[in-house]
């Protein structure tokens, strides 16, 4: 089962430290001083409503709609999460439409491409952007590391099982009296 990052809305204070950490972690140079409005493409987003502040990101679905609809088979399960193979992405945005969580975004960035006639031109390259659990980062997910209220965590199969067991216990023990007939 895939792991995924989950935010606890009771702890989130909406500060967006996670967004910056995500953007920095996914820069090849890891340089926070190079961030700008144009290249700021975090894969985690803080959302605030009247009664909720939380961070949203990919759930790493087991039967991932993004992967199912991708016409170029660019999205597949690997390393225990749903991974986009960027070299196959054609920027068609079908995955963006398919994702029920709004966790997939297609972003563009400039690349220098050689036309073959010894001329370098600036082109836009698209990439499907989603949480990759910072799988190639030794310290683990950057967002979890920086969250000042520890609102973010990575949930795996065992955590989910524990979460469910806790809820079952609470239901049974809190309401147990009501079940005695």
């Amino acid at each position, binding site marked *: 089962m895939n792991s995924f990052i989950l935010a606890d809305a009771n702890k989130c*204070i909406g500060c967006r430290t996670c967004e910056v950490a995500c953007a920095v972690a996914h820069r090849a140079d890891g340089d926070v001083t190079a961030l700008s409005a144009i290249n700021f493409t975090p894969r985690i987003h803080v959302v605030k409503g009247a009664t909720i502040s939380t961070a949203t990101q990919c759930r790493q679905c087991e039967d991932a709609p993004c992967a199912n609809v991708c016409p170029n088979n660019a999205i597949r399960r690997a390393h225990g999460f749903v991974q986009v193979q960027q070299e196959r992405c054609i920027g068609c945005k079908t995955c963006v439409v398919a994702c029920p969580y709004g966790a997939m975004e297609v972003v563009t960035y400039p690349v220098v491409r050689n036309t073959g006639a010894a001329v370098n031109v600036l082109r836009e390259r698209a990439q499907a952007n989603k949480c990759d659990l910072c799988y190639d980062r030794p310290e683990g997910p950057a967002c979890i590391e920086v969250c000042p209220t520890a609102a973010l965590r990575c949930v795996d199969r065992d955590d989910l099982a524990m979460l469910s067991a806790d809820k079952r216990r609470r239901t049974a023990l809190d309401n147990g009296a009501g079940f005695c007939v």
Partner: protein
Amino acid sequence: MEKVTTVCPYCGAGCKMKLVVDNGRIIRAEAAAGATNQSELCLKGYYGWDFLNDTKLLTPRLREPMIRREKGGPFETVSWDEAIKYVAKRFAEIKAKHGARAIMTTGSSRGTGNETNYVMQKFTRAVLGSNNVDCCARVCHGPSVAGLRETLGNGAMSVSIEDLEQAKCLLIFGYNSADSHPIVARRIVKAKQNGAKIIVCDPRRIEAARIADQHLQLNNGCNVVMVNAFIYTLLEENLYNKDYVAKYTEGFDSLWNVVKDYAPEKVEAITGVSAQEVRQAMRTYASSPSSVICWGMGVTQFGQGTETVKSLSTLALLSGNLGRHGAGVAPVRGQNNVQGGCDMGVLPDLFPGYQKVTDAAVRAKFAKAWGIDPESMDKEVGVRITDVPHLALEGKVKAYYIMGEDPLQTEADLSLVRKGIDALDLLVVQDIFMTKTAEAADVILPATSWGEHGGVFTCADRGFQRFEKAIEPKYNVKRDWDIISLIATEMGYPMHYDNNQQIWDELRELCPLYYGVTYEKMGEFGHIQWPCPTLDHPGTPLLYTDNKFATPSGKGQLFATHWRKPAELTDEEFPLVLCTVREVGHYSCRSMTGNCAALKTLADEPGLVNINPEDALALGIKDQQLVWVASRRGKVISRANVSDRINRGAVYMTYQWWIGACNELTQDNLDPTSKTPETKYCAANVSAIEDQTWAENYAAQVYSEMKARLRHAVEDARPAAVTA
């Protein structure tokens, strides 16, 4: 690669962090295990250091001393020697002609640290010869200092930041921790997880309100009514601690006479909060085994700020919630060293260590240490910064030496402040950036920044912590206290310090409150809270543990007063209340955070005006559209942020935007005691802009013009020989 332990230069939470330095350049910041932050940082701590690279994203660093020979003329770069001589001569002339009280100075609540503040007040008192020194505590927690000194004796948090998570009840009044101090907000979240009851009094649905057990969403401008209803409830329902009140407080008999008119049922229409909610809140607060009251600018930036502080401390006294872990009062100071500014006596009424300037014995002690004649010292309380514009216009203040503050951005009613500054004969600005205030200066003295020097800060809970130098300054700049010492020496008072510690040790000797706080004791991670009177004293995490208060009688002073309406009320033309607030990614005047890539990426000009969806709909305004916001004093462009966290009838702006500058709109009604402006309440209107394309272009254009102007002011300055 080396790691330098320092303290974050932003809010008052006092977070310890490490700057990772490679080849003389900072490459990242890491959280460190400080007492208040426990290895956590917020986005400003992690990503708020690259202003040190002189990014010019907002405004450039000041690189050379500069003089503007005539008003409106260009800056001319000069040598340090010439700049110091020029300033000293002008100060001496103005003092000779108009008297010592015609010169005003400021300390700085920001990155320079306690040592500089001590030296600045020494310079003002011993060399200039007046008590005209103040700092921006005036415009933020001035009422907390003034109010708590009267009722409890110490103008600071009685508990530690750590204590907040031990409280069983937090009463959070006009304090938005998530935006002001994320690392303190973390303690509130933890308190909630530990089962504490959270009561939030705020007109907006702030983050803490979301997790609160009760959110009393009171109307803007009626804090005193609300607190009086609280006191009424405590008395009428017999919820107060009779034993505690009898033993440790004074003034009980006069309370009822005031609050009897404020029955929760009777004031529902004013506060907008049901009586049942008010009564429930007080039952929770008073019955909890330990309660802390937290407050912020939502209490202090009103015409009745000081009185509200005194009334809030009355709640703590009535319920006996002081002097224990998880029980006390917590005015959480805003800027990283605003507590330190007050500690170091950059206040017109107090020497360092909260010793009164009106006390002859205290004056004699300082005069002796400073080698001056006590009779030459100013015996009166000095001028406060919020009085300066008025006094300048009256011709009573002629020179203003502003260090590390930006009043042309951060003070209320900027058109008034501009007029006051224009009326001065001499404006000396000592800063790290070309701020709006620096741009108006006659002399610019460029200083080293946080990161380029070390020292001691005091965080919000009275904790002294050392911060260290990480990199060498790039330009022809000097340490703040070195600049002041050179001016003092030039004016005939030899002043010289070799390092921070020398200054620190001089002031420790003069301040019984801090005598035991040595550099060694603070060390790398020490957080030593005053009072710390002896060398073997560990510091004082909790004040009033013996229920003895630092008041003349030793008893806590109970207080209640009648409500006055805010000074400027809404009307048909200006139907909305404008309240100024904070947002998490930027700090103070934004000269530092506005020059940080990540923080600028998250939020940039012209800034937001937060408005309720119904108000926006009625005005034909859509979310994220540009709008005009106007008051009787001006009009600025801003971006509408339509949010149902905002109450109807009020709009909220942050004061850090240089284009969408809300202080163009605010008014300068001052709290009569602390002289803090009522920036939480003025009348305004918001209007839609039909042509959004024009508006976007206009906002972008004025922003880029302003940045170019500030850049040119620094880059085009030349020595006189070249320009001639």
